[in-house]
């Protein structure tokens, strides 16, 4: 499975936050209640995110990461697919399928750096870079493996 297959039919981050159709007071939802899905969601937990029919007000389909100033960059060559980052990410922004790490959901990642902190590889498979930093440059400048300190 490749990243393309998962993200191909995914609605993740397809709209900017605030790009919904703006309706008048007579059409807003009762009590500011927002529905997460367009249709019956009884079995939604057994479906993968890309197969769920998210409603327009679910933040899943909106880009909500505009205030991020540093971002994690992922290095596939070092990653051992331990899933630590996937477990610890507070915003479910690690994309993983069949226990294989596929990348980072930059539409939801806030740049907290927890994934880097919990990454056990040497060197780390995830490192924080400035938001504007080019990922290819980041990968090219990845640090070397650190030797164990002599005891």
């Amino acid at each position: 499975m490749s990243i393309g297959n998962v993200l191909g039919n995914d609605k993740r981050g397809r709209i900017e936050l605030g790009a919904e159709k703006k309706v008048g007071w007579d059409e807003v939802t009762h009590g500011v209640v927002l529905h997460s899905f367009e249709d019956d969601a009884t079995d939604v937990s057994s479906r993968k995110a890309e197969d769920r029919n998210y409603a327009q007000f679910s933040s899943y389909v909106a880009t909500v990461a505009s205030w991020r100033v540093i971002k994690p960059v992922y290095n596939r060559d070092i990653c051992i697919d331990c899933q630590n980052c996937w477990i610890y990410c507070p915003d479910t922004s690690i994309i993983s399928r069949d226990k294989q790490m596929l990348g980072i959901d930059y539409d939801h990642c806030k740049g907290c750096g927890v994934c880097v902190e919990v990454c056990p590889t040497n060197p780390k498979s995830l490192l924080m870079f400035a938001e504007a930093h080019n990922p290819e440059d980041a990968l090219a400048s990845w640090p070397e493996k650190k030797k164990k300190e002599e005891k």
Partner: protein
Amino acid sequence: MALKYDLQEVEVWDGNYAASHALRQAQVDVVAAYPITPSTPVVENYGQFVADGYVDGEFVMVESEHAAMSGCVGAAAAGGRVATATSSQGFALMVEVLYQASGMRLPIVLNLVNRALASPLNVRGDHSDMYLGRDAGWIMLDAFNAQEAYDMNLCAFRVGEHMDIRLPVMVNQDGFITSHTAQNVRPLSDEDAYKFVGEYVPVEEMLDFSRPVTYGAQTEEDWHFEHKARQHKALIDARPVIENVFAEFEKVSGRKYNRVESYLTNDAEVIIVALGTTVESARVAAQYLRDNEGIKAGVVAPRVIRPFPFDAIRTALENCKAIGAMDRSAPGGALGMLFNEVSAAVYTISSRPLVTNYIYGLGGRDLTMEQIKDIFRDLKKNVDAGYITTKIQQFIGLRGPKLEFFETRRS
């Protein structure tokens, strides 16, 4: 299955116990509450009903009034019929969550047993807490005695849960004078009361797993105004629904309530507008002055404080010549709430009665019959003179030099 409670045709209940029985008969699903004088017995008695098997519901003991109303919000959003009670400082602590409840359109019933707000600390009755809640987006009903505390609770569920309304409802009663004074109360049977209140129908309930919902979403300048406007419209539009519920209640109880209660007002020249137990005292004074001094006195009282009966109170007052608006809350550097709102309403009719403001009874200070008669006599003097002869705002029943502010500018 909840046990049936055997009731007499006439029970001797205080306002708190009357409210407890109404909550029991409504078969509330969740009561989350924290005790505070003078409202404690409402939920204390209710807890006893739960323990004794008279209610199929949960009583949740929480660590504060903020938590109490938060528990109510959670249970109501989950899809249950919910109620609680509080007073004074507890109500003040609840305020943040009151706005959440109304914004989320959750039909919670809150018994607010009116008591002064500190400082100085005071457990006695005045309307400070009631006034504190008036912009919270709740429907506010006012009971003047124990019978009405019972009746208004039953009506509160019907009004708040109405599909066109879905708003939380406060039932106010005077601390101690109503809440702790045993009076004759004629309850409905359990069957009739529950039939009147009806089976609870949830809306957008969180426990419907086929349609997951978010409650308490954030909005900024792009959505907030529209949501608050819709909420305000629901509140204003509650007026005919409240009238219909009162009409339905008359059919099962024989007791007729109105958004504005008028007493001897048809030919009245001078009218007192008041809330709570003062209404009944003023009615006695009005009758006395009619019988003994020939003063055509009447009494008008908002049964429904929110939505403010701007239309109905204007109609009730349009033929009188002078109005005394009695506020039992420290006005905090302004004219009293009733004065301001009644004045605004009568400013839009051509008769333009003379309106004056009386601040009284703070912290449980007694209001005497003679003081009420003096207000009517003041108002009569204003009518005869054709202008306001006193200061516009006067404190009555207060020790020390006369405290009064503002006068009519006649040139």
